[in-house]
């Protein structure tokens, strides 16, 4: 890109905040009442952290892979890519993550989740809370109303944050490979929200930086 230093975030923005949030509103309306089911699945997945059954890791990984697939197809590919051609390529991140979750979590059974009393455990739990409980409230708090609420398992940002939190709760070394796609998505989405002037940017960007620090701290132990 010639003269790359002259570009700012807003040079890459293709749509207005109103168009973006109406996209979420129309998606919410189209999939209703799927939101109740996905939130229920999210809470059930969080509850499984307390369950030490041998199939726990496979089930959590399978649920995450299923929800990522659904969000990638129903929102990113079918709706978001219409106003943002870059989203077509970003769908690839979802495909990679789903394959990694299926391979490491479901096929090999290499992921086992457990809450721990350290920085990574606290951060993981905070991210789960943010994804499932706080994110749906952000739209009404920002004055955009409930119809534009971003719900886990329905739109990307909360759906991506939850697995980052869960992956911090994996027993043993942090699964770095599984964190790459969510972190990249959060970086791109955070930059988009910053360019849109959206207050959610100030939640998403730190929410993806904190876990990296927490995972690194756990990795050093």
């Amino acid at each position, binding site marked *: 890109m010639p003269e790359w230093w002259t570009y700012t975030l807003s040079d890459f923005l293709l*749509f207005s905040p109103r168009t973006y949030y109406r996209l979420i509103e129309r998606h919410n309306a189209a999939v209703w009442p799927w939101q109740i089911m996905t939130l229920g699945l999210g809470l059930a997945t969080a509850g499984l952290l307390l369950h030490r059954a041998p199939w726990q890791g496979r089930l959590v990984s399978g649920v995450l892979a299923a929800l990522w697939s659904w969000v990638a197809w129903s929102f990113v590919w079918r709706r978001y890519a219409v106003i943002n051609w870059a989203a077509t390529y970003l769908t690839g991140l979802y495909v990679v993550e789903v394959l990694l979750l299926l391979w490491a979590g479901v096929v090999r059974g290499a992921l086992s989740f457990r809450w721990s009393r350290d920085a990574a455990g606290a951060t993981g739990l905070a991210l789960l809370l943010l994804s499932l409980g706080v994110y749906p409230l952000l739209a009404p708090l920002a004055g955009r109303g409930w119809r534009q609420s971003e719900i886990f398992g329905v739109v990307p940002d909360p759906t991506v944050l939850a697995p980052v939190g869960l992956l911090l709760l994996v027993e043993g070394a942090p699964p770095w490979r599984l964190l790459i796609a969510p972190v990249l998505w959060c970086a791109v989405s955070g930059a988009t929200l910053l360019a849109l002037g959206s207050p959610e940017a100030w939640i998403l960007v730190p929410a993806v930086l904190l876990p990296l620090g927490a995972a690194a701290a756990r990795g050093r132990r």
Partner: protein
Amino acid sequence: MIRAMAMAAAAALLRPLSARALTAPVTRPIPSSGERLPVVGLGTWITFNVGDDPELRDECAAVMRAFFREGGRVIDSSPMYGSSQEVIGDGLGRLGRPPDLFSADKVWTSSGAGGPAQIEESRSSWRVPRFDLLQVHNLLAWEEHLPDLLAMKAEGRVRYVGITTSEGRRHREVEEIMASRPIDFVQITYNAVDRAVERRILPLARDRGIAVLVNRPFRQGALIRHVERHRLPSWSGEIGAASWAQLLLKFIVSHPAVTCAIPATAKVAHVVENMRAGAGVFPEPAMRRRIAAHIERL
């Protein structure tokens, strides 16, 4: 009595005429053909990228309806602008394909071989038989695209050919192309604060007989938001500018090398306001200097 009646009749006849003269868009010729274009057009970056949202598409169609009603002609888009081309095509269909449309689009792909297919896809999205103007977007692979566009022009498949840049990028290359290739249009960024093109590109356009389209007249709205914190100077009325947007637009289109400025908007009130800036009185050089100096101080 007869004299009074004659004066009243004359006033009735003259009033609408002078009102029309004040609201009819000022036009400038495309140097390579002499065809005249209104000095204010319609950009579509961000504002028309609304996907398949029916409510927002209605609003875009309303903006286009008001634009043509006010005498507008030039609509500019690009395959880079997401769904904007589709939304324009939808709007044109609803308006019954306005005959005054001057369709300006771009080729935007790093692959020279991919240019013709992209242009055809764009034409299909716009639902027009052919484009009036095709430009190489931001000089991307211009060495490959420009010969193709010139060949299309020779075959009558497009009427005019041009290049674009924005925000002052690659001006030296733009000048080289303007000086050496038979292009009809150049699209650049120009406004009361981004005035680098006044030094070389605008004079070169006049020398070479190249029409000039102006993008980012309001710096994507940032310039308006900045100046609107201050009171519109009282002397704006001398050139018929009733708002900051009109003052900024009148500054741009009063440059003799400028053919058409293409502000983007999604609001009917704004498109009407913009179009009316392209009518009536324009600032003379002394007033242009006053506008630039005033905005620089804000």
